């Protein structure tokens, strides 16, 4: 349900970027969401559609790029995909690993029809 807060923040950022780039109608919005983010794409899309009604981003296409989770071992520096979510190094068994990717929640671009 926190997708509503995320959609609200997204709509504000898209509007700011739109105005900073001369205005016009927003055709598409591209965002990046990491695997560890508890975001349900369908719910985020429906909130985005709802909040953008009657604004210059009404009917804009929301493109969601999914980013797989990966980690780096603090002991042996191995970089590995987090297939089973647990932060345990497959090379040396160390638990001193940090999340490298998978935590993203970013607006990366938009397309304007000016």
């Amino acid at each position, binding site marked *: *349900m*926190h997708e*509503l*807060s*995320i959609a609200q*923040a*997204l709509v*504000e*950022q898209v509007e700011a*970027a739109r105005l900073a*780039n001369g205005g*016009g109608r927003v055709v598409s919005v591209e*965002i990046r969401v990491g695997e*560890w*983010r*508890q975001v349900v794409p369908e719910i985020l899309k429906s909130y985005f559609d709802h909040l953008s009604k009657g604004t210059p981003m009404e009917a804009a296409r929301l493109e969601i790029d999914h980013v797989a989770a990966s980690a780096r071992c603090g002991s042996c520096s191995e970089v590995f995909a987090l297939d089973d*979510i*647990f*932060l*345990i190094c497959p090379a040396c068994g160390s*638990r*001193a*690993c940090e*999340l490298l990717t998978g935590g993203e*929640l*970013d*607006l*990366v*671009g*938009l*397309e*304007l*029809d*000016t």
Partner: protein
Amino acid sequence: MEIKVLHNILEANDRAADEVRATLAGAGATAFNFIGGPGSGKTSLLERVIPRVADRLRVGVLEGDIATTRDAERIAALGVPVVQLLTGGGCHLEAAFVARGLTEVGLSGLDLVLIENVGNIACPAEFDLGETAKVGVLSVTEGHDKPGKYPLLFHEVSALVLGKIDLLPYTDFDMQAFEADFRGLNAKAPFFPLSCRTGEGVAAFVVWMEQVHSRETDFGRGYGQQ
């Protein structure tokens, strides 16, 4: 026209959280953000913790809930200042709420701020409130499989409380499997099995909270002298 930008979508919340952190540091106060599902025992934990520290530390509480002031009334009965933050349906607290709550609760006279997030094991983990430490609260009746199902929370916490351990004999909770999964997500955070009903284990958790507070304030003092 295609435009490339790169903004963390939650940056407005993160900015508000940074302001909360600065406000807390300025006041010499330490804030704990308690996150756990409905009925996991967050309010009961506060009811156990507050009387144990009230003679040494001044405590204020921010109670996050979707509706009703029932939790705030329980805390007010302990004689500490409490502010109810009603989200009106929202599933989590955000930093701007906490900033308002700190003003209302009277931060200047406080050492500890205990923030009870909305009962929810998933969403609150996504939002930085500017707290000093996140505390995960799980109870044995919720099952030992939760770390793997909600990895973000268990990864993010600075400490984990496992409550209702007096009920262990009546459940199939597998402590070994639970600890192995938790440690697979979080190698460092201390783990406090306890029971608010019997009081077992509460003292160790309180010691940890006081350590976090003295570390923060010692650092603050040392930093100020430089």
